[in-house]
């Protein structure tokens, strides 16, 4: 089921949570809404589900306008961060709930409901735990039950609100892989909210990066990571270092010295240079960025150093090979291999 979000605005007591957001979600894709807290990602998900009503704008499920439909009519599967399992029902009853509450005309026979629930329990790899109560399960198991429960109603779209947020790192990684498998097997259009960019980059077909009630960029993980469309996305996705520069004579200048990078355009003025700490090359001579090592620490297979660059108050981070002899006060000259320039002092 493809979903179209059209010029949606949502205000909570006059405070805007979403500002004229539009988004096309393709049928069968796994798409992540990513952003810091307060960016409106959960609000957008709840609007699609019908748990909130938009102040303005419309939402289409396929060609059908779903804006005025109730949650019940929308037939969406929703998974909550805190599982929201019914504690008075055992695992199987939880999964069967959505089918059991259907009106008689559309309700499958009891045996069929049971068969389907057991099948789903098998899909989420919890066969044999059907009689357990949610309190008797681990966090990861509970979230699997919640997913099975959501899938039981054969939803038109699957919506997950920070589904792995309450789980520890190991379980999260495992469930991530498993969710991807389930998605590939069942082919549901799936939207999930996360503030964990690693999760989004690893799991999603496409990312929607949001901040302050607006969509900053939509694209595949590669697009968003390699060609961020604005400073926010560059700073939010992956590691980044930023430095104010001046553009003059088709060259970039820092503190009155050329740094050996050509300007992409003729314009003259202030700009901000963004690059990834690991995307730099050390240079022996020629124009380059030069700084003095202020701190260094080992991060996995590399050594991350903080450089003080003449006259610039914030430190810049770059990665060096872990066996690089740089110590404190060492002078290092480098050039970013890949970088982007955003105009203006703040880079807007």
């Amino acid at each position, binding site marked *: 089921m493809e979903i179209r979000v059209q010029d949606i605005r949502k205000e909570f007591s006059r405070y805007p949570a979403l500002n004229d957001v539009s988004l096309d979600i393709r049928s069968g894709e796994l798409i992540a809404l990513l952003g810091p807290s307060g960016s409106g990602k959960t609000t957008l998900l709840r609007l699609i*589900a019908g*748990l909130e009503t938009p102040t303005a704008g419309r939402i289409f499920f396929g060609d059908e306008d779903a804006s005025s439909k*109730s*949650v*019940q009519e929308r*037939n*969406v*599967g*929703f998974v*909550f961060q*805190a599982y*929201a*399992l*019914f*504690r*008075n029902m055992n695992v199987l009853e939880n999964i069967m*709930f*959505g089918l059991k*509450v*259907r009106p008689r005309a559309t309700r499958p026979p009891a045996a069929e409901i049971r068969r389907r629930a057991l099948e789903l329990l098998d899909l989420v790899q919890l066969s044999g735990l059907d009689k357990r*109560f*949610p*309190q008797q399960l681990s966090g990861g198991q509970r979230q699997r039950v919640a997913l099975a*429960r*959501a899938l*039981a*109603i054969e939803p038109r779209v699957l919506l997950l609100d920070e589904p792995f947020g309450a789980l520890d790192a190991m379980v999260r990684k495992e469930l991530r892989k498993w969710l991807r498998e389930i998605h590939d097997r069942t082919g549901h259009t799936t939207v999930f909210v996360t503030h964990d960019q690693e999760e989004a980059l690893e799991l999603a077909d496409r990312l929607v990066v949001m901040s302050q009630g607006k969509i900053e960029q939509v694209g595949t993980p590669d697009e968003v990571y390699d060609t961020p469309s604005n400073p926010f996305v560059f700073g939010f996705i992956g590691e980044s270092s930023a430095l104010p520069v001046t553009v003059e004579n088709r060259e970039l200048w820092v503190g009155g010295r050329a740094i050996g990078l050509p300007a992409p355009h003729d314009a003259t003025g202030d700009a901000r240079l963004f690059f990834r700490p690991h995307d730099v090359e050390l240079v022996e001579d020629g124009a380059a960025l030069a700084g003095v090592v202020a701190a260094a620490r080992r991060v996995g297979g590399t050594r991350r150093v903080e450089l003080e660059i003449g006259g610039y108050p914030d430190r810049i981070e770059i990665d060096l090979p872990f066996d690089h002899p740089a110590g404190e006060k060492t002078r290092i000259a480098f050039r970013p291999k890949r970088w982007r320039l955003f105009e203006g002092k703040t880079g807007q």
Partner: protein
Amino acid sequence: MKPSVIPGFGLTLGYTLAYLSLIVLIPVIALFLKAATTPLDKIIQIATSRRTLAALEVSFGSSLLAAVVNVVFGVIIAWVLVRYKFWGRRLLDAIVDLPFALPTAVAGIALSSLYAPKGWIGSLFAPAGALNEWIAAQTWLPFGLSEFQLSWKIAYTPTGIVIALIFIGLPFVVRTVQPVLEEFEQELEEAAATLGANRWQTITRVMLPRLTPAILTGFALAFARAVGEYGSVIFIAGNLPNVSEIAPLLIVIKLEEFDQAGASVIAGIMLLIAFAMLLVINLIQAWSRRRYGNV
């Protein structure tokens, strides 16, 4: 017992036992000892006399009915107080506690004057009351329904007793259900809604099961309070032997007749029945806690 971070287990347990013995256990035992001094055939005679049986029936029957009514309306009140923000909510919240604070005799007098045949509410239901006049005026009703005459005497009958007991038992259900309802996760309702459950299904299948232990607690408290209630009831009951005489009143009457044995036998029976009923309620509660998770 491992040494705990906070010392004083021995001291506090000793204090608790001594205190409970002094306040509860010793008086109860004394009561049974007193009753036991009466010969057995006399006990049976008192216990099975028509007047005692009728009084016990009135007491426990009306207490049960009042507790059931309080469960239904107490849950609704708790729901309104928790779920809706409206002007005057805090005032309403405070009013719920009034039956706790009011001297029960005051409540009894107020209720009996309201529900007496000449009182504001009682007169409505009297044979020549406003309600009957209104029904008689509805001549358009088929089957001669307008000739139906309602004659419901409330005060000085068992109905009056039930009303008084509803009044004094109201806060118990509201105050036990309210905190549980406040903690109820909105997400559970939302989850039920996304799964297609309508409002009614969400309430009956998701919410009520979670509230059951609290409702049972409130029921038990309201019931226990009603069984022991004396002050408010005697004013509105009319106290007709075998009809609207409650067991606590019968005990007082026996005492006034210097029939200490009779009084302690009836008291002992009341205690046993109340204890048995509370035990059953507690068992149901323990079961529902296991069944519906800890609340």
